[in-house]
């Protein structure tokens, strides 16, 4: 396959996301300008100017009309997707680490970091009364800091991944922790849901990625690597999982790494075995995402490049031997 390289960021990529239809890719990085690209040919549609610090997370709503970004400059901004204008800016006391639109697009949530004596908090806003600036709900987290969070299905709860490896459910109405599990030993770098939201995959610094059932947080599968996993995604059409990760410096000197040797690894969902690798990045991969139709995937790395790969026919013909 001939990957399309998108070079729109000067610093390392923190997250990439496809919109629901798959024709747009949103990328955000440690430089303060998130970009949006057409996934078909890699043409850049535009960039969102306004942040002053690293943008950690980006999300787009169902209809691809609004974009939400979480930044280290203590704001979470809402943008219009078509024009790039800032629709709203929500100020916080500390850096905003994650953000997300709920399934219906009515609510947004973002989480803040635990610094300067302030606890880590989940803020939930109703988009209808965003002008007030009053959150619908604020849930303080007393335990370990949240490093990754996604909305649960049906907008009943928020699934959070913590620095100590815990994954929890926080109820929307009451703000209580309704479920939790501690399968990972180190911080959770990324949480992604499957297309039908019944499964959750978590990528952790403890060199594994684990598959859970969303509703119960029952641990189903583990995918082992030998380097910290920064991001994991589930294919919407096959039983495939892609893991992106990598460790710098230490490992680089011991292997014959010249160029482009950091790879994205493909595992079988059920058998937990690796079946493929795609090289190309010049640094650890920080974020991976499958296209909603499953025929392509993208990865964003520490090198600041987003690589969009359209799979070869050999990928579709591949049958795992068992």
């Amino acid at each position, binding site marked *: *396959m*001939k*990957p*399309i*390289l*998108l*070079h*729109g960021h000067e610093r390392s990529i923190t997250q990439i996301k496809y919109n629901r*239809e798959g*024709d*747009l890719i949103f990328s955000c990085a440690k430089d303060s*300008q998130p*970009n949006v*690209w*057409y996934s*078909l*040919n*890699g*043409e*850049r*549609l*535009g*960039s*969102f*100017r306004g942040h002053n610090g690293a943008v950690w997370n980006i999300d787009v709503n*169902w*209809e*691809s009309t609004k974009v939400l970004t979480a930044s280290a400059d203590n704001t979470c901004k809402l943008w219009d997707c*078509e*024009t*790039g204008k800032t629709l709203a800016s929500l100020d916080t006391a500390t850096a905003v680490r994650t953000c997300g639109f709920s*399934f219906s697009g009515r609510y947004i949530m973002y989480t803040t970091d635990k610094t300067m004596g302030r606890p880590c908090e989940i803020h939930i806003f109703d988009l209808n009364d965003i002008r007030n600036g009053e959150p619908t709900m604020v849930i303080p987290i007393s335990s370990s800091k949240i490093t990754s969070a996604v909305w649960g*299905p*049906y907008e009943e709860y928020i699934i959070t991944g913590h620095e100590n490896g815990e994954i929890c459910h926080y109820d929307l109405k009451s703000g209580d922790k309704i479920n939790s599990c501690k399968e990972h030993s180190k911080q959770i770098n990324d949480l992604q849901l499957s297309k*039908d939201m*019944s499964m959750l995959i978590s990528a952790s610094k403890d060199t594994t990625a684990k598959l859970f059932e969303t509703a119960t947080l029952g641990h189903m599968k583990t995918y082992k690597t030998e380097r910290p996993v920064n991001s994991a995604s589930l294919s919407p059409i096959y039983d495939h999982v892609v893991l992106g990760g990598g460790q710098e410096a230490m490992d680089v000197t011991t292997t*014959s790494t010249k160029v482009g040797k950091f790879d994205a690894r*493909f595992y079988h969902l059920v058998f937990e*075995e*690796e*079946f*493929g*690798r*795609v*090289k*190309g990045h010049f640094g650890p991969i920080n974020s991976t995402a499958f296209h909603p139709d499953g025929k392509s995937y993208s990865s964003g790395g520490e090198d600041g490049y987003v*690589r969009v*790969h359209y*799979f*070869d026919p*050999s*990928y579709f013909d*591949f049958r795992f*031997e068992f």
Partner: protein
Amino acid sequence: MPSIDDSKPISWAEQVEQVEDGVLPPSSEQYDEEKGIKVVTEFKYNEENKMVKTWRKFGAAERDPPGPNPANTIVQVEEINMQFIHNKEEVQEQEDDPLLKLKSQKLVSCRICKGDHWTTKCPYKDTLGPLQEKLQDGEKPPVGDAPGPPTSQGPTAPAPTKTSGKYVPPSLRDGVNKGRGETMSSKRDESATIRVTNLSEDTRESDLQELFRPFGPIQRIYLAKDKNTGQSKGFAFINFHRREDAARAIAGVSGFGYDHLILNVEWAKPSGTS
């Protein structure tokens, strides 16, 4: 689960249809009433089934022309393939290891067992090794100077032959008939001469010996040297005993990279190689 998925597309589709009447390029939408499944066919060739097509660029892309901006969007020309790892096999990475490449050519041979590995890596080091040494010790008294080409430190095998313990002069040894044949028809050997060019200036006869010895016994090596500096002029003539060895040497060394230059090997023209 299914109910949620149904409700969304209905409202979205209605919205979409209301907004654009004739703007969108033709795309087929089929809405199956019974199952509540909406099938949207997008034509990827130059058309996109979305209002996005008519969106203007904003932010840093404001002044970009239509189409991908080459500063940002690069299609990688080099193909990258997914390396499939099958159940118990490791990913073969032959290209990365230059040693492996060298092995696959016939220049590496172990002194002990003549296999295609370096002597130090020989699996029979501790069995055949001492045995060879014993044979060599036995050879030392009868074999004064080594006959023919000098034994080098390279991966060539010396020839431990008999252990009679008595000195046999060269003219009465094995191969004495060959020697006679050779002296009589030394002219014939000119057809077993090859010329190797594009040598680096600090190549020596011993390097050439090492390089060409695996193809067969060498009769003579002539390395063209500058009289004053003693450095190689970049070419040399190698005389093999046999013509087929010379042929193999041409095939084997031609194009071989030696000390930053690619060697050129061919038959020597019969004139001037005195």
